[in-house]
């Protein structure tokens, strides 16, 4: 297989320059792929898929039978980012998370930013994920959002924009780590020659940052709280717990006694110090949030409030990933840090502003409309791909609840080649880097590249037919002296049920 018939289209291509040559960071990969024997690349792709299925790296589609348990589709051609491209992203994400954390802390304390009129007060009051119950909370180290996944997209101009912030329970990092394991086996020579920054130490860093939150002990008991084996991200919960060597608990394993949190073990109860929770605020504690939640632990929030247990992320962080609040993030950064934002936002129309509303209603056919408090790609309208009837339906929905809708121009998301049968086709991609916020922010080099596998589709969410790619962040500028043009002589990768 080669790239001679590959069409870049009128988009920014992650692998090829406008003149058809590979970008410097991707040159070795392209040479290697083109030197492979016929059928070899497809065999490697199949071996990767079988490995994922056997490892059980699957996700459940809500409300469907187990027959529909699917592997998260994976394309073995990595997406490569050069060091000079990554550096501003890294700085920009660190800046953004610092500011958002200060914002959350402020919103639940003095609300200076509201009083100074930078963010409208009524916006917070009407925010579905603002939690009255969190007012006055003081999380350890002043950190609210310990783990964040921020979605970035690249427009036709090649510039990275922030599309949305995920400050609640972002998932996907386990795929980053597993994808990397597979890619190392798939393209070992290119990988070695490319100086790719490692991602394997994420779990160690995550555990360290969780341990730092222990309010009162040097050897804290840390657990990961999952909604259970039928949650769509359960694989990730089990994976992270296993990699960190901590217990994976469900709400019913825990109870609160005398203000402390314990888990039920075969040898009695054991005190818990830190909970990495992968359950939404609403389900955490039926005494404080939704009373009908069976996934949570009664009394948990009170124990947290009294500093008896730490939660990551803190409850209430969703206020900062409301899609209307998102539009104010550049101002939030300027307000708290007195700096200009490094990573730009996508232009956003807020339907609660009358002028924006009129503009949106008039241009529905060319805009992307999103509900303010949803995630996972649910409830969106992609204007150019929608029917007249869908647009009319959305117009009604927007008019009846303007606060809940924002609109953005339809971006020409960048594309990357994926294997389609016996050739390569361009598909749109985004990027979700993961940020750990402890004393200092840490940004996992790369993150999850999500691919809209359906031709022409702009929606990359796994619930909507999206897949993933490994993301390589190069540590140094590409070495021009190495070449894989004659790489057919390299020892072949052995194929079997499990590639090695």
């Amino acid at each position, binding site marked *: 297989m080669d790239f001679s018939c590959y069409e870049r289209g009128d988009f920014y291509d992650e692998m090829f320059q406008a003149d058809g040559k590979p970008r410097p960071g991707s040159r070795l990969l392209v040479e290697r792929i083109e030197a492979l024997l016929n059928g070899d690349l497809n065999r490697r792709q199949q071996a990767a898929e079988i490995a994922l299925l056997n490892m059980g790296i699957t996700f459940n589609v809500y409300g469907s039978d187990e027959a529909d348990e699917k592997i998260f589709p994976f394309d073995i051609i990595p997406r490569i980012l050069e060091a000079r491209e990554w550096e501003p992203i890294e700085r920009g994400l660190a800046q953004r998370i610092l500011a958002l954390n200060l914002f959350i802390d402020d919103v639940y304390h003095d609300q200076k930013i509201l009083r100074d009129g930078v963010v409208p007060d009524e916006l917070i009051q009407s925010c579905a994920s603002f939690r009255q119950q969190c007012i006055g909370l003081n999380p350890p180290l002043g950190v609210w959002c310990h783990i964040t996944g921020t979605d970035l997209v690249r427009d036709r101009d090649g510039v990275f924009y922030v599309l949305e912030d995920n400050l609640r329970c972002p998932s996907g990092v386990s795929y980053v780590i597993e994808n990397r394991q597979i890619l190392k086996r798939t393209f070992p020579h290119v990988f070695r020659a490319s100086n790719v920054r490692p991602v394997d130490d994420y779990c160690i860093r995550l555990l360290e940052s969780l341990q730092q939150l222990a309010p009162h002990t040097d050897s804290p008991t840390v657990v990961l709280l999952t909604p259970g084996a039928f949650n769509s991200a359960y694989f990730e919960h089990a994976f992270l717990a*296993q990699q960190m060597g901590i217990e994976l608990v469900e709400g019913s394993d825990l109870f609160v006694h005398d203000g402390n949190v314990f888990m039920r073990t075969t040898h009695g109860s054991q005190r818990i110090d830190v909970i990495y929770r992968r359950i*939404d605020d609403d389900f955490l504690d039926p005494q404080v949030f939704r009373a009908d939640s069976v996934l949570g632990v009664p009394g948990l929030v009170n124990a947290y409030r009294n500093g008896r247990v730490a939660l990551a992320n803190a409850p209430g962080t969703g206020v900062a990933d409301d899609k209307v609040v998102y539009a104010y993030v550049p101002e939030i950064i300027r307000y708290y840090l007195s700096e200009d934002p490094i990573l730009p936002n996508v232009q956003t129309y807020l339907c609660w502003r009358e002028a924006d509303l009129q503009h949106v209603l008039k241009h529905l056919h060319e805009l992307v409309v999103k509900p303010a408090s949803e995630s996972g790609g649910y409830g969106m309208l992609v204007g150019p791909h929608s029917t007249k009837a869908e647009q009319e339906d959305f117009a009604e929905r927007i008019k009846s609840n303007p606060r809940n809708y924002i609109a953005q121009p339809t971006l020409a998301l960048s594309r990357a080649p994926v294997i389609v049968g016996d050739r390569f086709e361009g598909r749109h991609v985004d990027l979700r880097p993961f940020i750990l916020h402890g004393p200092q922010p840490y940004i996992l080099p790369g993150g999850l590249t999500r691919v809209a596998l359906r031709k022409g589709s702009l929606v990359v969410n796994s619930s909507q037919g999206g897949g993933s790619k490994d993301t390589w962040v190069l540590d140094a500028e590409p070495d021009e002296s190495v070449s894989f043009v004659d790489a057919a002589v390299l020892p072949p990768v052995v194929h079997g049920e499990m590639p090695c």
Partner: protein
Amino acid sequence: MLSRVANSIYWMSRYLERAENVARFIDVNMHLMLDLSVEAASQWNPLVVTTGGEELFLAKYGENAATQDNVMQFLMFDLDNPNSIYSCVRAARENARSVRQSISSEMWELLNRLFLRVKRASMREGLLDAPHEFLTDIKDTSHLFAGLTENIMSHNEAWHWTRLGRFIERADKTSRIVDVKYYFVLPALEYVGMPYDNLHWAALLKSATAFEMYRKQYRRIAPNWVTEFLILDRDFPRSIRYCLVKAEESLHAITGSPAGTFHNLAEQRLGRLRSDFEFARIEEIISFGLHEYLDNFQVRLNEVGDAIFDTFMALRAIDSTAARSTNGVSTSGASNS
């Protein structure tokens, strides 16, 4: 260790052992039937009885429906039957999935791959005509799993829970294998003690993979010796007595209390049951009535299981029927995914 995790590991292990035993039942019965004359070769009902599915089978298939095909379908792939191979493998896998962080990745992958193979097999036409390879796969994978457990898992509390589950399940299944003889109706009285009877006893031993080991020890096939070997043998790893001794070892390793003592109901019941078997003689058992003795044993073993649950577990694991019905339950509750 978390109670829920212990419970799931215990049941993971039990369900896999159960699947293996059902596979063995079917395999041996099929070979036995091939050796019997045509008029004798319709005895599939005992398999349904010994796996405890009589009522369900009757309800699904009706009277006199215990044909080879029906029974094999029922025991291999019927998801309504909680003791079919498919149900057991699925339950083992779902339990393993919920404790992935506590067992090794290799163990999880082995069960996951087995499940995927069984699922594919359940959709394959014609498998009932030649199921040998399929059944061998179930048995082999179960052995491989035991080997992984032995060799790559630390012999910690989780390991003892896998062992406790395996030996309790195995003790139960061996008792059912011996008991199956009770249900087998020989075509006519003159068959007793004749070659067909020998075939039956040999098949019984084969169901417990005990045939070769038995031969080494006793050589000649005699009913009392066969039952003695399967119930009371000290060294054979599928005899009831051996299973009880090993299960008790693991139970005490979990609690830390010394052998020969008890500090909870589970230890008391299992200890008493084990000592009964250690000091029993086969003649007593036969004169008491083999079927009654085994029936009584199964009741007491269930009481041990109940006591283990009451002592250690606060919650139920995913059993082979619940694994399905949980599909519709809303367990979302995490966003940004």
